[in-house]
Structure formats: structure tokens, C-alpha cells
């Protein structure tokens, strides 16, 4: 088998050939531009190709969902972005979207319908978990994470915002990883500090940075791998680990990277 695991086709390409993909992969700004998160994008692409899923991306036709603008109060800018995106998505008759960003997921799923964009939207953690449930993805018994201590950091926009607590954990459990919880988890999970457009400004005055507080909780579990499912959490926790000078021993990995590695992709 020597299929190209890195192959990516754009929606324009599909349309030109009169084909339609099973699912559109919404890459998001971090997934497209952030050096660290590009690796997550590529890991997810490998998983999709590995399972022979016909997927497309918008490529240069994609643009910011408008989440940071809306959370920072700029409703005009958000709606401009949203309408443009919806026009493109609707022109391609998109039905199903998967994304590796909880913020893109939340806004397309919950906030685009009022502006005319109705799609089935899945976060990649739920998408992968469904593949595992359907028996399409079977992590091997001797995967790299078997018995490895992992702690999962709940993203606010998956957890409290959309009640997704189980899928990411089930995914790690399917690898037989040793899942350990932080002091604050699930509905009580502590924010990484980047939501609500905080990613794009300095924190307000205070005693401590939120990501440091959260990183300390993660380190307390003794896990050497911190699993995250969001580009902002990824940045904040990685910075936190660096701040503690632990980047040699502690890895912050996205769920997609963990699965890709377990599958030797």
C-alpha cells in the first residue's frame, strides 16, 4: 500500500470534476497558519486518508469564521465573515463539516444557522470517536500509547459550551492509555486562558496567568502527555510547559496527533 497519506484536494477541484466529498474539513486559521497547529492539521489529514475518507478543504477560499471578532464584541466584522463563508459553503452545497478547532466548531454549528448556514458540524474528536465506534478505526493492541499516562484538558468550547466531554476521553481509552484526570475536569475544567479573544491580547492585571495555573494542574497529575483538542489550548499549555522548563519531558499533543502516532501514520 503506497497511497499518499498527505493528499489534500480542494472543494474547487471536486466541483470541477463534478464530484462531491463525504465531508468538508474546515482547517481554520490556526490550522492553516500556526506552525504548531499545522502539524495537527496534517495528522488529521493522514487519518482521513488512511481510512479512505473522501474529504475536501476550501483552501484559499476559506476565511476566518469570525469567532475572535464576535467574542471581542465586533459583531459587524463577525457577520461579514460569516456571510462570506456561508455563501461559499452553500455554493458548494456542503452538508457535513469536520474541524479540529472547537471555536470554529461552535460558531459554525451554533451561530451560522441564524445567518443561513445549516450544516452537520463535527469536532474531530467526535468524528474520530465515531470511526472507532463503527469499527472503521481499530487502534492496535501494541500502540505507542498503551499504558501511557495521559491527562486530557477540556476545551471550554467543547465541554461546557457544547457538552462534549466523553468523546475525547473515549478516544484515549480506546488506545488503552492510562487516562488521569486533573483536579478540575469536565464541567469544572479550568480554561486555558485564551478563549473569548484573550488569545489576541495581553491578559488583564492579576496575580498569575491562567495558563500557568492550568499547566500546574496538568503537571500535578504526573502525566508526561497532555492531550488537548483546541489550537488555543495547545498554544497556552505549550507556553505553560515551557515556562516551567519542562518541554523536554512533557509533551502537549492534539488528539489527532495521538491517534496518528498510535496508528504509525
Amino acid at each position, binding site marked *: 500500500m503506497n497511497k499518499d497519506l498527505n493528499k*489534500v484536494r*480542494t472543494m474547487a477541484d471536486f466541483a470541477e470534476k463534478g464530484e462531491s466529498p463525504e465531508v468538508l474539513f474546515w482547517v481554520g*486559521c490556526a490550522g*492553516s*497558519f500556526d506552525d504548531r497547529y*499545522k502539524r495537527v*492539521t*496534517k495528522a488529521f*489529514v493522514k487519518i482521513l486518508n488512511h481510512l479512505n475518507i473522501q474529504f475536501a478543504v476550501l*483552501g*484559499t477560499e*476559506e*476565511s*476566518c469564521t*469570525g469567532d*475572535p*471578532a464576535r*467574542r*471581542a*464584541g*465586533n*459583531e*459587524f*466584522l463577525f*457577520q*461579514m*465573515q460569516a*456571510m*462570506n463563508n456561508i*455563501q461559499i459553503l452553500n455554493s458548494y452545497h456542503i452538508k457535513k463539516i469536520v474541524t479540529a478547532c472547537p471555536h470554529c466548531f*461552535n460558531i459554525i454549528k*451554533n*451561530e451560522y444557522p*441564524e*445567518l443561513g448556514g445549516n450544516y452537520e458540524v463535527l469536532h474531530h474528536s467526535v468524528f474520530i470517536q465515531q470511526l472507532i465506534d463503527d469499527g472503521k478505526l481499530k487502534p492496535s493492541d501494541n500502540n505507542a500509547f498503551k499504558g501511557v499516562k495521559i491527562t486530557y484538558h477540556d476545551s*471550554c*468550547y467543547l465541554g*461546557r*459550551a*457544547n457538552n462534549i466531554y466523553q468523546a475525547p476521553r473515549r478516544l484515549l481509552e480506546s488506545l488503552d492509555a492510562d487516562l488521569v484526570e486533573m483536579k478540575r475536569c469536565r*464541567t*469544572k475544567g479550568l*480554561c486555558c*486562558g*485564551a*478563549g*473569548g*479573544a484573550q*488569545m*489576541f*491580547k*495581553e*491578559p*488583564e*492585571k*492579576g*496575580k498569575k*496567568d*491562567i495558563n500557568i*495555573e492550568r499547566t500546574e494542574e496538568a503537571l500535578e497529575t504526573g502525566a508526561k502527555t497532555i492531550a488537548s483538542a483546541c489550537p488555543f489550548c495547545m498554544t497556552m499549555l505549550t507556553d505553560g510547559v515551557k515556562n516551567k522548563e519542562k518541554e523536554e519531558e512533557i509533551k502537549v499533543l492534539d488528539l489527532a496527533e495521538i491517534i496518528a502516532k498510535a496508528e504509525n501514520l
Partner: protein
Amino acid sequence: MFVLQIILFFIVIGTTGYFLIRRIRRIRSNIRLGRKIDRKDHPSKRWKNVLLVAFGQKKMFKKPIPALLHIMIYIGFLVINIEVLEFILDGLTGSHRIIGQWLQGIGAFEFYHILMNTFEFLAILVILSCLFFLIRRNVLKVQRFTGEEMTSWPKLDGNLILIFEIILMIAILKMNGADQVLQSRNVEGYPETGSLFFSKTLFFGFYSKYQTDFVVVVERVAWWFHILGIFGFAIYITYSKHLHIVLAFFNTYFAKLEPAGKMDNMPEVTNEVKMMLGIANETPQEQPTEIPRLGAKDINDLHWKNIMDAYTCTECGRCTSECPANLTGKKLSPRKIMMDVRDRAEEIGESLRRGGKGFEDGKSLLGDFISKEEILACTSCNACVEACPVLIDPLSIILQIRRYMAMEESSSPQSWNSMFSNIETNFAPWKFAPSDRFNWSKE
């Protein structure tokens, strides 16, 4: 004496009714200062929230110990209200233990006996729970009862309610104790209740040392004290965080049903954006004559549910104790946001009723009550929303104020303004060329 008591009672109940109704009307009109929002869809889901969260106190059980104590006070409160009903009937008719006599008449005396003993048992549980809560507040100094916004009045309010409840419960027990002494002496007008365990143990021996005349006075004073106390309490709570005992039911009914992560849309912006993009508006609406302010600066920019939230807030601080910004020393406290909204709504409502300046008083919610620093510290993490036992949504208020800051004042921080212009020109919050967006696939 007899007639005098009835007349007095009518005066008391009338006065209470007058003040209570006036105050309820005022709170209602203060809540109505807010903008319209529809919260009547999906009634069955709404009732479910009322049943689980208000009646069932589901969210309280995230902290089991206070939840148990709280539920004892809550059940005590509900059940003892049946006795208050008997009090009121007695007061209006000049009888004594009218329900008891009626039950005796239909041969259900034992039922009344058990009922009275149950009330006393609950009264004891309420007293113990309140004592425990007082200790938690004042001796153990549970952290969430402190904080910048817990100034002298909120602190006093929290303690007063507990003390009030203890005193009311003791009055019931004293009254029953004296009553039983009178029964044992076959004094006229004191029908048999059967032996009531707690009041007998606590007060019977004490009062049986006194002469009948004095014991009658003790019983009457305790009766009046209790009923006046209940009426006074009813008025007091409308000025207090204790209003949640009523509003929690309304507030859970009208709570947001959509996923917590969803922000409300602004249709007025949608119309304008559609025009700018040249998209035909399918449902052409009449242009409102007065263009509303974008986002929230003051009470009337918020929607009515935000204000109802504020009146429902119990000041328990569960929101603040979970808030990542507050936990790391930022100025933001979601509880303070709720308390500020209530204070400002009260201030404006009062001023409007007096024919004063109302909204034109030169003050506003943002600026005089809530600072920008607080609003900017929020990560929109929904921890406060999740933590609130009565489904209050502080985040909704914070985000509406941000809209005002960004769109009316243009006072967002510089780094946010750069982010805005990046999105406008590069379609990404960072400064990358849109044509490079797909480069990752080739790297």
C-alpha cells in the same frame, strides 16, 4: 380582646399585602426596563428545568454538604408554610388551631398530631442547618463568601436571613410549648394537639412553672411574633438576595435552552451587513425609527432576562469561585456583575418612579458600576454559567457590554483592533497573506 385581635390581624395582613404588592410591581417594572427577548419556546424543556433545577436543586448537589443543609431549610420552608396557612386562618377568624379542630371533627386527629410533630422536627433541622451556615460564613470563613463585592450590606444580609429563620423557628417551638401547658390545664380555647416532642422537651417544663395568665401571654406573644415575623420576612426578602426563593422558579423557566457556547445574534447588524454585501433580504423588515444602541452600556440595553438574573442572584459566589480570571487575581467577578446590574436597575427604577432623571442621570452600568478592565478579563469560558445553581448567565451581560465597547465606543484594546483589521484585510486574525492559507499542504 377577641374582636380586637381580629381587627389587628386584618390591619397587619392588609399592610403586608400592600407593601408586598407594591414591591413586586416595582421589581417587575425594573425587569421590564430590559429589551425584549423570546424565552417562551419549548415549554416542556423549560418545565423540566424548573423541576430539576429549582424544585430538585440539581445544581446545588455539585457541593453535597451545603446542598443537604440547604435542602433541609428549603423543605422546612415549604412544609412549615402549611402551618402559616393555619396561622392566617386563625388570625382572620379569631379561632385557634382551626385546621386541627376541623381534622379532629372528621376523626383525623392523629393526622394533625403527626403533622405538628413533623413541623417541629423540620423546625429543628432548619435551626441546625442555619447554625451550620452561620458558622461556615463567620467562623470557617468559606472563601466564596468574601470578595470585593461582598461589602457590608451583602454580608449582613446573608447573616440576617439565617438569624431571622432561627428566631422564627424558635418562636414556633415556644408557642407550642406554652400551648401544651395550657392544654394540660384545660384552659378554654386551647384544643388538644397531642404531645409534641420537641417543644415539650424544650419548653414544657419551663413554662409549667408559671401561672396560666402568664403562659397565655407567652403563647399569644409567640404567635404574633411568628406571624409578624413571617410577614416582615416576606417583605424583607424582596430587598434581599433571598428573593431567589421565589424568582428561582421563574428564572429556571426562562433560562437559555440553546448550547451555552451560542451567542445571541444581532438582527439589526444582520440587516445592515446584508445590505452592504448586496444580499437580498428575504424578509424585508420595516426600518425601526430609532436605531437602538449596539451592545449594552446601561440597563435598558440588556434584555429583561439579564435583569431577572440579577434579581435572582443568591450571591453564593459559586460563579466567581470557578472563574479563571478571578482565580488568577483579575478584577473580574461574575457575581459582582450580577450585583451591579441589580443595583443599577434599582437605582434607575427608583429614580424613574420619583420622576427623576432615570437613565439621564449621567451615570451608566459600564463606567460607574462595571469597569472595562473587568469586562476585558473574561475568557468566555462559561464556568460561571455552569456553576450557577439557579441558571444565571453572567457571560451574556459581559459579551453585550463588549459589543458596546467595540462598536459604539471603539474602545477595544489596541491588540484587538489589530486583530480586527487583520481579519478585515487578511481574513485571519494574524498578519498572513490570504493566498498563503493553503501553503500548509505543500510544506
